[in-house]
């Protein structure tokens, strides 16, 4: 796939912007699906994210990894989207929520990521966010604490619970199949 012309994208050339969108839509939509509650939410995140990308593309220096930059914008957009949906993003008390223990059967016909996305979307939003940031974005607990405005201890405990619950749901899913 040819790289889209960034100058044309910055200048508002629709053809170039569409090429840019086609180039990154798959990876970025997969990213949004991991953070979102449902596919519709992920599409909203993707739409909002790409609008921000085209708006701020002139701030990209051209030296670093473009995909990394787009990814960063998307993650920030996803977090803002979740935060708008739920003001207290991460202060979920394990005792106060009903954690689902049943998930759809693991479908071996689908790629693993599709099955994992279904399980991720069953997690409470706080668990899912910390899980994504730590396991898949490689953020440290102090970084997560700063991003989400929580303490490092909360980040660690949320991750521990998120992983335990994710594992449980995955096992249930595999068993059901």
């Amino acid at each position, binding site marked *: 796939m040819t790289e889209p012309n960034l100058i044309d994208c910055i200048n*508002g050339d*629709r053809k170039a*912007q*569409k090429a840019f*969108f086609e180039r990154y*839509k*798959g*990876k970025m*939509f*997969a990213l949004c*699906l*991991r953070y979102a509650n449902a596919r519709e939410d*992920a*599409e909203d995140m*993707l*739409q909002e994210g*790409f*609008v921000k990308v*085209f*708006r701020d593309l002139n*701030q*990209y*220096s051209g*030296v*670093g*990894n473009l*995909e*990394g930059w787009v990814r*960063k914008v998307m993650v920030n957009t996803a977090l803002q989207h979740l935060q708008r949906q739920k003001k207290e993003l991460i202060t979920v008390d394990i005792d106060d929520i009903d954690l689902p223990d049943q998930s759809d059967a693991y479908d071996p016909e689908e*790629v*693993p*990521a*599709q099955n*994992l996305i279904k399980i991720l979307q069953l997690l409470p939003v706080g668990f899912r966010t910390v899980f994504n940031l*730590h*396991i*898949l*974005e*490689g*953020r*440290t607990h*102090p*970084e997560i604490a*700063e*991003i989400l405005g929580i303490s490092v201890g909360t980040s660690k405990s949320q991750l521990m619970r998120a*992983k335990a619950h*994710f*594992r449980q749901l*995955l096992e249930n899913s595999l068993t059901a199949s």
Partner: protein
Amino acid sequence: MEKNNYNNQLDDFVQKSFDDYEENPSSNMWDRIEADLPTKDNKRPLVWWWTNDRLRWAAAAAMIVLVGSTVLCIRYYYEQKILAIERAHQEGIKANQYGTVPNIAPMPSRESTTQDTSISTPVLTEKDATPSLSRPNKPKNIVPIATQTDRLMTNPVSGQSRPLPSPPSREKIVANQIQTPNKVVTNDPKNIEPTASQPDAAPPAIADLALLPMALIPTVRKQVLDDPQGVIHLKAVALDFSSKPSIIPVKKHLNWYIGISGTPRLLVRQGKPPAATTPSPGQRPRYRAEQDGPDLSSDIWVRGGVQFQSPFGIETGIGFQNVERQSNHKVRFAYREGTFIPSTGTRSKQFNYDLNTYGGEASVTLRTEENTAQSPGDDEAIRATIVSKEQIQLLHVPLLGVVRLGQHKTQLVIKAGLQGSWFLKNEVAVSTFDLNASRLRPLPGRGISLVYDKPNTFKLGYAVSAGIEYRLNQHWRLLATPAMSGYFKQKSGAGNKNQGNFTAGLHLGTQYWF
């Protein structure tokens, strides 16, 4: 141990599952995005800043400051103007009571109003060595050689003499009416109330006062117009100083101004960044980086102020500053100072350091992985150069005390006071880094990341300047003042105190005095 292994396997499984995974959104997604994108026509609307909440509030605040200060200045200007007229009037009254002030023309009597050829003002001859101050009421000791057209009127402030114009005729009085809330002076002679000192008054000098924006100056209105003596005051002023000259003392003292100016600035850093510290176990290590590259910026100002009768005055205004900085940060670590990245095993380490920016403090994380079979030694030096780009837009509102010294065309001006700064835009991005370590390379896709720790939105600081103002003519001045401004120290989001940076520049501009 088994649980840990299981956890690590689960992490690896999840990471590998999502590696290079792509899924397509719905087919109309591009149409939805395109609908939200600005077209070329409306990409930059005429009032583009109106779409930004912070800019809109800033514009509203700016308007309030400008309108408020303008109203205050206008009010102050006219109050001074009328007070000066009243002062002049009081001096005229004293002159009449004691008859001892020769440099103010005596008020014409009723006769002088009606008999144009009478000589009511004695004038000293050059031969008379006796100051007229002592004998003004003894005209027989003075030779009255002047005629009506030769009478002199002396301005009490400037001391300059000039011929006193003829007292206005009855018709002129009639033509110039002044209305007050209590009474109206009309063309009916019965309504022209004579007083003890000036039986017949002519108000033409005050005609322009009737045009004053009285609604803006209720206190002055009360002082002059609601005063039962108001009409008499105005008449007296007219009689004492003829027409326009009675205003001259006020005109000579211009006391408020507005101007535009600009300041090229250089950011000055105080002190060296603290040395790197070895973190205790479990603690996130933080290091400060050395930063190079000049930090130049510039700002533009609209400023207005009031100068009191003394050397003191006050000044306020609005300034807009745009800062775009690209800086190279040279960071140094020992390999042991990094921490292992949990999700990538033991061959990847990350290094954190603080980025001291203009508008806050950011944290940067470098992620590396080993690229040779042999791991680096614990003390192996790792050097990296990171490029950061900052884009900051600031709105400054100062409140300064001003001292102007000297009576010549060139005045020494010293200003000092507080300055509030709103961050309209405050963004930082790090783009890349060059790793100078043969056994390490940036972690693909995640080599560098930045967390902007609570960027500043408002800062309180100080502004000081000292320089000169050069008076081009009665209204225009040029100014050149070396200026310095900085922010008071405050704790950043990371719990560290910002370094005490300040900017130094040259404030250049022009002023129009009213």
